[in-house]
């Protein structure tokens, strides 16, 4: 989230799309309701009428996988009716930037496309630069090749008729929603978006969100209170685990994992440190080497020296251009590439797309380590449906771990608040905390290398690793400390002193910091995440800002890009709900995005989007794999023969897997119905931490599939009957819920039925509770992130 949960109350219009917040993030509705009580309008767009829809002022149905068409229509509406926030768009976004002559778009393809590699040469999308190397701008937004004009041209194709024909959303609903959402383009109004996996789990997932970012920038809704782009994260610490980068492509703090071609630390730093010749651009990533060196110092402590490149070559490197993402991982495992596997606090046999493929893949391992609180479908995969244990060689180690309240440490919520948890009780006899397990295991491995030697032992033996697990020791390391006495910016720091903020991190080895984004979270003042002080200034109280409660990255800034919430004199666009204000000497309110004075101070100031190379919000996004503007493509499996917007039916940059487990069918009469997956309030993710709780299981005991009355009639299915749901990849037995919550769509003149089912069940428990919906979903992903398309695929339904 660019903003945070409480801030939702400051919105004038709340759009919930790709999310069922009322059921999956129930407490978020406390703040949605507060906004509504003050007169805000709530809009819900979803294939299914849910409890979120029931609370909405306007509900509109949409066929799964057509969000870009819907949002493209909104962009078109805003532009055609000139409802954008002109000053914000011209000054704070790249709408005024001139794009080079090679850029073009024709029949679903942007220029630079190579059909053989199914990828783009992004140099075709570059900006035209002036003699200083700075993009040329036309702030009147009239130049035919400026981003604004290209945007207008691109989305002029997204007419109400076309959008309605593709999405199945009635035209009058589209118009009503477009009009109300566009009203937040008034400078003292704000609109927010609450989205979740309903937007990310698509082959166009990133571009779904990009489309909304464009809308938010056009309406001046980024950086302001009641605005932003807000991902509702589904796991208690998925924000923190992402910040600390348990992901192949990034190191903690979103630093890049080095590629093989980057032989030295200097080459690595050079590659990822952007240079901006524009003196008005803060270009924050210019500090990259300070963060990467401080990270390596945290990894290897005193063993990381300038002479050995701070241990750069002890870190594993990826091949250039290769992905090691989840779907690739399970594809390689299915092909027998891996010997060992850790499934730690995760249940991929239910959570991963094409779950049958993952289950088969585990049978090809030599050994598997599964750490969890409860038994689950992954640890016990060898006795699952269709498995013959006598033929499965995989050795499995199951390690029982503690519940959150049995250990001490912090987690980071969706609003980036790092909050400390205390140990309420010791784990039961025989159970250890995750931290304890990993520290003990690594110490055993280190002992073996110390005693026996082994291949390339340096990174293992030189790792800065504790004897025993202590969350405070790690939290202090993540924040970072000075490794020697040093004077920085006129301030003297002693060796061992905690670094007060990332502004003091250095690239010479004098500081360590496990994650620069969390620098400031555990300082000489103490553990900031543990703070429980609700004091606030009058200005902060107006927008529900609690700067002394817990801690928020970066530098306790609660609303990101807040320099965009004020005009060039530092006056809030919305004085009734100000985020920051320049008082003539300094900023007051939230922690600003840098202390520079407002833009009226000229060269002393900086543009508001400080993390971007050119300091501008990116309406044009030349870094994405599938194009600088979002374009509608159908899901890999879809019910229509052709894409109404172009002759490219699916995202032209999607990469497919080719094992016998990767079967896909579009417009196949055997799989005629669109299907989507979701969760229920009472279960969490695969259900591994909820299915074992009698209170929750009693409320939601078994797998169901929801379908419209029309479809049920067509198939002769009655409410409560058991039915088979099948896709090319697997089948499930579920209880039919025949409901008015789903209605057939009219798509390109044809009737299209959509069904849906939750993915929170598994064969292991409860007995006869059903299995995971991911048995049905396809293993295909977004070309940028490789997040799988589990929200739009095709199935059949029949009576058992």
């Amino acid at each position, binding site marked *: 989230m660019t903003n945070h949960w409480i801030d939702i109350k400051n919105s004038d219009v709340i759009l919930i799309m790709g999310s069922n917040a009322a059921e999956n993030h129930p407490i978020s509705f406390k703040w949605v309701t507060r906004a509504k009580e003050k007169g805000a309008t709530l809009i819900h767009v979803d294939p299914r009428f849910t409890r979120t829809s029931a609370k909405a002022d306007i509900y509109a149905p949409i066929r799964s996988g057509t969000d870009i068409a819907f949002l493209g229509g909104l962009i078109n509406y805003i532009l055609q009716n000139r409802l954008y926030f002109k000053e914000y768009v011209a000054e704070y976004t790249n709408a005024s930037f001139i794009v080079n002559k090679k850029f073009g778009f024709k029949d679903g393809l942007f220029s630079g496309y190579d059909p053989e590699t199914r990828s783009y040469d992004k140099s075709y999308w570059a900006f035209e630069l002036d003699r200083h190397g700075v993009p040329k701008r036309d702030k009147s937004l009239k130049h035919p090749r400026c981003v604004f004009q290209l945007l207008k041209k691109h989305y002029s194709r997204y007419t109400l008729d076309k959008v309605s024909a593709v999405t199945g959303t009635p035209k009058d609903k589209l118009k009503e929603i477009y009009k109300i959402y566009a009203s937040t383009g008034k400078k003292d109004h704000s609109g927010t978006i609450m989205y979740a996996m309903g937007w990310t789990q698509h082959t166009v997932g990133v571009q779904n969100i990009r489309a909304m970012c464009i809308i938010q920038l056009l309406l001046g809704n980024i950086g302001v209170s009641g605005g932003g782009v807000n991902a509702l994260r*589904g796991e*208690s610490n*998925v924000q923190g685990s992402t910040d600390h980068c348990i992901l192949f492509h990034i190191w903690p703090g979103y630093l890049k994992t080095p590629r093989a071609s980057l032989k030295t630390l200097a080459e690595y730093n050079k590659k990822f440190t952007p240079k901006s010749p524009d003196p008005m651009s803060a270009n924050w990533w210019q500090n990259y080497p300070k963060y990467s060196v401080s990270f390596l110092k945290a990894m290897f402590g005193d063993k990381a020296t300038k002479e050995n490149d701070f241990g750069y070559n002890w870190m594993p490197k990826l091949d250039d251009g290769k992905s090691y993402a989840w779907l690739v991982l399970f594809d390689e495992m299915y092909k027998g590439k891996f010997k060992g596997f850790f499934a730690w606090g995760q249940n991929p046999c239910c959570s991963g797309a094409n779950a049958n493929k993952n289950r088969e893949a585990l049978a090809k391992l030599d050994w598997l380590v599964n750490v969890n609180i409860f038994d689950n479908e992954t640890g016990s995969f060898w006795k699952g449906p269709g498995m013959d244990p006598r033929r499965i060689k995989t050795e499995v180690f199951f390690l029982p771990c503690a519940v959150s309240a049995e250990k001490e440490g912090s987690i980071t919520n969706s609003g980036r608040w790092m909050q400390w948890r205390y140990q309420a009780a010791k784990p039961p006899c025989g159970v250890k905390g995750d931290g304890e397990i990993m520290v003990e295991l690594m110490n055993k491995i280190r002992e073996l290398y110390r005693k026996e030697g082994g291949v390339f032992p340096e990174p293992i033996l030189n790792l800065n690793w504790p004897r025993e697990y202590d969350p405070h020791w790690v939290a202090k390391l993540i924040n970072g400390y000075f490794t020697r006495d040093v004077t920085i910016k006129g301030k003297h720091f002693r060796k061992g002193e905690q670094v007060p903020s990332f502004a003091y991190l250095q690239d010479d080895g004098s500081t360590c910091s496990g994650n620069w984004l969390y620098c400031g979270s555990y300082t000489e003042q103490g553990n900031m995440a543990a703070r429980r002080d609700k004091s606030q200034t009058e200005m902060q109280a107006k927008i529900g800002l609690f700067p002394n409660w817990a801690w928020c990255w970066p530098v306790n800034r609660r609303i990101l890009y807040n320099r965009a919430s004020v005009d060039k004199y530092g006056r809030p666009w919305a004085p009734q709900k100000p985020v920051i204000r320049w008082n003539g000497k300094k900023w007051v309110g939230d922690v600003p995005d840098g202390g520079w004075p407002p833009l009226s101070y000229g060269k002393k100031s900086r543009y508001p989007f400080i993390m971007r190379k050119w300091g501008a919000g990116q309406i044009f996004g030349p870094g994405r794999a599938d194009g600088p503007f979002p374009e509608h493509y159908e899901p890999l499996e879809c019910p229509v023969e052709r894409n109404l917007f172009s002759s490219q039916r699916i995202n032209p940059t999607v990469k497919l897997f080719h094992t016998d487990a990767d079967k896909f069918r579009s417009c196949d009469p055997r799989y005629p119905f669109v299907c989507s997956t979701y969760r229920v309030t009472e279960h969490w993710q695969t259900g591994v931490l909820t299915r074992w709780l009698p209170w929750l299981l009693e409320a939601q005991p078994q797998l169901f599939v929801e379908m419209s009355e029309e479809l049920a009639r067509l198939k002769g299915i009655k409410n409560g009957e058991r039915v088979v749901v099948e896709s090319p990849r697997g089948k499930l037995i579920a209880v039919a819920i025949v409901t008015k919550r789903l209605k057939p769509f009219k798509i390109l003149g044809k009737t299209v039925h959509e069904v849906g089912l939750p993915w929170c069940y598994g064969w292991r428990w409860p007995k006869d509770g059903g299995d995971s919906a991911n048995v049905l979903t396809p293993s295909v992903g977004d070309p940028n992130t490789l997040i799988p398309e589990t929200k739009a695929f095709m199935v059949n339904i029949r009576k058992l």
Partner: protein
Amino acid sequence: MKLTRRDFIRITGVATASVALGNLGFSLKPAYAHAQVLKIRMAKETTTICPYCAVGCGIICHTDLVTGKVINTEGDPDHPINEGALCAKGASLYQMINNPKRMTKPLYRRPYSDKWEEVTWEWALEQIAKRVKETRDKYFIHKNSKGQIVNRVEAIAHIGSAAMDNEECWLIQAMMRALGLVYIEHQARI
């Protein structure tokens, strides 16, 4: 009398209804409320954050000073996000902690076996450490096909976890990267 909070709500609900009907003549409500307060009066209070979704609701845990067990969990009224409220999942934290179905011993499944065997932590961790070392040493890749230094292991993969604390997340990535793993993923990718 052992009284859970659920029982308390149920019984007081009945008692209130009875009073409304005038059958009982007096209310049990204060007595049960007193019993409930007694139960947590001597308990240690700690704050935690809900382990389910990422709204980050505050929860108070009450721990019995004698048994060391968590005897009650409830929404933290001081927490600015949830102001004491919890959803069905958050309100069930008590039952995740006190759950007879929890696994309490490390288990081992031999190749081609159809059952789990209970093992000690010492044995399990030693065996895993050995497997990691053997696999790593055998399959370690110093240079890729282009001859570039990569110092990595492609024969072991790791996933998880967004359910861990930040400090554990940082440590697990440090550990896996130090071992040379490149296939490191978790919930954020799916």
